[in-house]
């Protein structure tokens, strides 16, 4: 099971990398979103996808499932959700002001 999930994560990371390397801002943002999904799956896998009881001590017999990766994923999902929302708004605002979504044309300094 772990091997399958790891391969899935690999595919997701490959897709994300491809998207992030493009010049269109929206594609890049989608790339970061896919990347964060891959990362969340990775945390889950790193905790081990073992079959275990609910982690309520003494209520059920050992082995217990590892509850920590789930807590971590929850935190990471919330953060990546907020950041994605922020950057989408910023991309829209930039498009309104500068009139382009091509990263090559978004150069700030004159002598860059």
């Amino acid at each position, binding site marked *: 099971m772990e091997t399958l999930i790891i391969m899935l994560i690999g595919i997701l990371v490959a897709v994300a990398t491809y998207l992030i390397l493009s010049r269109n801002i929206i594609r890049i943002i989608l790339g970061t979103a896919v*990347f964060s999904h891959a990362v969340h799956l*990775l945390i889950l896998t790193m905790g081990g996808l073992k079959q275990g009881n609910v982690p309520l001590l003494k209520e059920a017999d050992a082995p217990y499932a590892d509850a920590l990766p789930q807590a971590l994923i929850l935190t990471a999902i919330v953060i990546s959700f907020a950041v994605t929302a922020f950057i989408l708004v910023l991309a829209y605002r930039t498009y309104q002001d500068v009139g382009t979504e091509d990263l090559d044309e978004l150069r700030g300094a004159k002598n860059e």
Partner: protein
Amino acid sequence: MINLLLFPVLIPFLFAAVLLLFPKKVKAQRIVTMIGLLFALASSFVLLYKVKVDGVQALTLGSWAPPFGITMVSDMFSAMLVTSSLLIAFFVVWYSFSSIGEAREKAFYYPAILFMLTGVNGAFTTGDIFNMFVFFEVLLMSSYVLIVLGGEKVQLKESIKYIIVNIVSSSLFVITVGYLYSVVGTLNMADISVKLAEIGPSGIVTVIAVLFLIVFGIKGGIFPLFFWLPGSYAAPPIPVIALFGALLTKVGVYAIMRTYTLFFTTDVGYTHTLLMILSILTIVVGCIGALAYFDVKQIIIYNIVIAVGVILFGASVMNESGMMGSVFYLIHDILIKGALFLLIGIIIKITGTSDLRKMGGLMKRYPMLGWVYLVVAFGLAGIPPLSGFIGKLLIVQGGFEGDLLWQSIFILASSLIVLLSVIRIFIYAFWGEEKGEHLISDKKYRHLLAPAITLATITVLYGVGAEYLVPFMGDATNVLLDPSLYIDAVFEGVK
């Protein structure tokens, strides 16, 4: 088990939340921000005293015994960084009163600064690696707000790149934490240190170490991951650059120093040699950049890159002199970069340009500015008895003791380039014929100069009074070089 070490994190947070309630009342915003920073500063000094007297302080939240609860740890190193970050924020806010403009002040400028301080101080204080990621996100989110605030075209163009780079590096951070968790099964930094020492040298641990170097290297701006830094830092107004330049890269540097002394001490031959090589390359690139531009902002920004290299070189040799030098130099650099940015901010306000070729002859009308700039520039280059000297001396001494002869000589040579790059600003801006008109009134000039001079005075005192700081630096170095002090403080009363 005391709550004191949470105060420098929570007080800015509380005051920022209060400030959100009345964004349009500029005067009230200014006063409340100053009161909040003074309270936080007072608490951090009490914390400094407490750590000096009683040793490393640790607190595990929610009455969970470590390693299960989230631990906050304040050793001398983190307490000093917390104090200096609050100090810098105080001066930057003071400077902002007459520099940033009312439009930005009404658009949640001060709350964003205080939230960023929450993140910075939290990252310095936390003893839990995932919690460090969360605090990184807190400070990054506030920095996103600060970098786009105002919405000028340059800001919008550059901040998109800054944010994308940081999102990717945050994802890498989570990946790395995931790998680390799969190896050691814990997130508590003291516990990770114990477990990694039990595992001993192993391939996967080295991979994790290098991944951490990449993650924190992107934040800290080491070679070759600094590519985003010069462009993004030049975009926002000067007070924001001062905060970013003084604090944000240093959080990355702190995280590298912490993980490379607490976790990855089993395969020093590979990981720390890599760190050493990268730090030298960082200095090379920084030197090239610092000499290549006629833009005052770019010159100082590349000096940030150089300083990151020098600090990490001292940390990579892993002996007492080198480490103590790094701690000295890190705090020095926070203070002096803040002062330098505030001073060149005044130059830019007066001349209305950041291009050196279009300014000149400021010495006639603004002699005070010139002399203060010169003193700070000498301090940056490390001319004794100013603040940069003692740190660099110890780092170079550490390099010689670690048999890194050529690298140490190279660091000495880089000081000359640093000196040349900042003196170029002095020569172009202050000497020669007066060019253009002066754009600010004398009153505003005085208001801008006051915080800059006070901060410059503090950097001078930091250098002259180095002898009195040695016991503090010694404590910080001891904890860095002997992780058992850190671990024992966290597990006090458990084992």
